[in-house]
């Protein structure tokens, strides 16, 4: 009886894995296939050739390596600015008392529910009036600006959990709020800040519509936009699209697998705003 239950249990789990991973496997296989303008018949889910030329072609053609670096630069800068600004803001909301604090924070939370895309038109006009259309600065400032509310919410919780006694010991030694912040709070919250950094990075790495709207010059594009360039008007070479896709998603998936314990836990609070 026990054994039957076990078999059913793992049977369901494995069937689920099959459904989850067949699309990925199909993508990998296609990325290793030559001439995918026409659909091969019958379709191959398991790789039967190893045409890695697609990867070389993708990397060298259409400035793809350039787009990779663009995305990397934009995502890293966004991450650093976002983490820096939101840890300061979160500390302010966690450990200070001031009028309208809870009201402003509630506005932050409500703004998290509003989908980013809804604001894209006015945000674009803001970027335009700042003269930042078609610049990385424009894109980064938009990513950071629209991410701050969520990250402040996320980090405040962690900062509030830091025991008062630790802070008081600093105050007794004559330390200021600032000392408390960077000597006690930041080091203690390091794991959650780390988790959060990865979310900020991957958010900017994957972002599609702001990048599509703000960046005009071809050489300045980011990866998600570049992926779309491989899609032809009539026939698309899916071998190339998927080779490019795999290059684009691998860094994020690797980071996730390496840090999965922390990320899954962090993902729950981050997931409170599901896009």
């Amino acid at each position, binding site marked *: 009886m026990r054994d039957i239950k076990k078999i059913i249990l793992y049977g*369901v*789990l494995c069937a689920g*894995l099959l*459904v*989850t*991973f067949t*699309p990925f496997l*199909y993508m990998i296989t296609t990325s290793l296939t030559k001439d995918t303008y026409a*659909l091969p*018949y*019958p*379709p191959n*889910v398991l790789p039967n050739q190893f045409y890695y030329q697609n990867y070389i072609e993708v990397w060298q053609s259409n400035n793809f390596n350039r787009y990779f670096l663009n995305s990397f630069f934009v995502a890293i800068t966004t991450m650093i600015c976002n983490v820096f*600004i*939101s840890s300061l*803001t979160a*500390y*302010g909301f966690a450990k*200070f*008392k*001031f009028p309208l604090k809870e009201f*402003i924070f509630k506005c*932050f939370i409500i*703004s998290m*529910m*509003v*989908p980013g895309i*809804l*604001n*894209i*038109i*006015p945000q674009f006009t*803001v970027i*335009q*009036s700042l003269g930042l259309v078609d610049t990385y600065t424009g894109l980064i*400032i938009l990513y950071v*600006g629209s991410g*701050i*509310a969520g990250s402040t919410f996320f980090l405040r919780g962690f900062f509030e959990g830091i025991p008062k006694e630790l802070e008081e010991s600093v105050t007794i030694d004559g330390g200021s*709020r600032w000392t408390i*912040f960077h000597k006690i709070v930041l080091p203690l919250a390091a794991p959650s800040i780390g988790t959060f950094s990865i979310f900020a990075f*991957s958010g900017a790495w*994957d972002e*599609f*519509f702001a990048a599509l*709207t703000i960046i005009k010059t071809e050489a300045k594009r980011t990866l*998600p936009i570049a*992926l*779309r360039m491989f899609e032809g008007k009539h026939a698309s070479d*899916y071998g190339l699209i998927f080779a490019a*896709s795999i290059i684009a*998603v691998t860094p*994020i998936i690797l980071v*996730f697998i390496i840090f*999965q314990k922390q990320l*899954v836990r962090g*993902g*729950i609070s981050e*997931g409170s705003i*599901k896009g």
Partner: protein
Amino acid sequence: MDTNLLQNRIKKGIKEWLEVLPYIAIGLILVFVFVFYPLFKNFYISVTEYTIIPGAESPFVGIENYKQIFNDDKFYYAFRNSVLMVLVTVPTQIIFGVVLAYIIDNARKGKTFFKTAYYIPVITSWIVVSYIFKYIFAGGKGGFMNYILMNLHIISEPIGWFQNTWTALAVTWILSIWKGIGWCMIIYIAGLQGIPKMLYESAALDGASEYQKFRFITIPQLAPITFFILINLTIGAFNSFIQTYILTNGAPMNTTHVMMSLMYARAFQNFEFGIASAMGVLQGAVILCIIIFQKWVIKKSER
């Protein structure tokens, strides 16, 4: 005496603000400029015939844009499709999510492995998974899904998935469900760990079956989390976008747009910013209603 008290309070308030300001100033400015201000600007754009060219005039047109929206079939299709996206994908994700979570939570070995594996679609970018599904559901005999369905003798002719409104919509639903289950599962696993083991033990003593335990302990205990997931998925599904944009972009004949993809098309393909913003305001209103409903239910259940 009273004015004195008020003055003191204001003084204290200002002092507190000056203390905290160095920490929160940049954050506040950014959120104001890129979130709050755009929200209000949206209202303004929605009542003008907005021109994006700097310096050009944007004449005030009142509710003209809103009228135009409601006189447009495209809007009704998009609204219907957004609602269907919620009605189809949300319950399905919840059911699969809770069952998977329950099974994984009961598995002795490989918990971490299965959790990680099922979460991978969640972290893979929308645009990449959209392309995968576009390829899987390619038309013709060589399309992966057509090939399988034909070999299983479920269909006799290959289906042109994206040539037909309902099959195209179905593909966007399947993709959304496939990508979202892992998220539900992770949250449910966290929720399951919060259920006191004692409840199960005493139920076992009373001779409860596995199904009865699931039905009468697990499900009720998970109710608050289910509500949290329900609200998040509803808002998420209502805002869904990239899958439609990549898979169909409205085709055939603008019948598969969802609210967001139609809004984007009107703004950045037709340059009808006023109308697009008006759609945005309507969408925002719907989301606000969902949030208010959520607050109301939580308050009621706490009483």
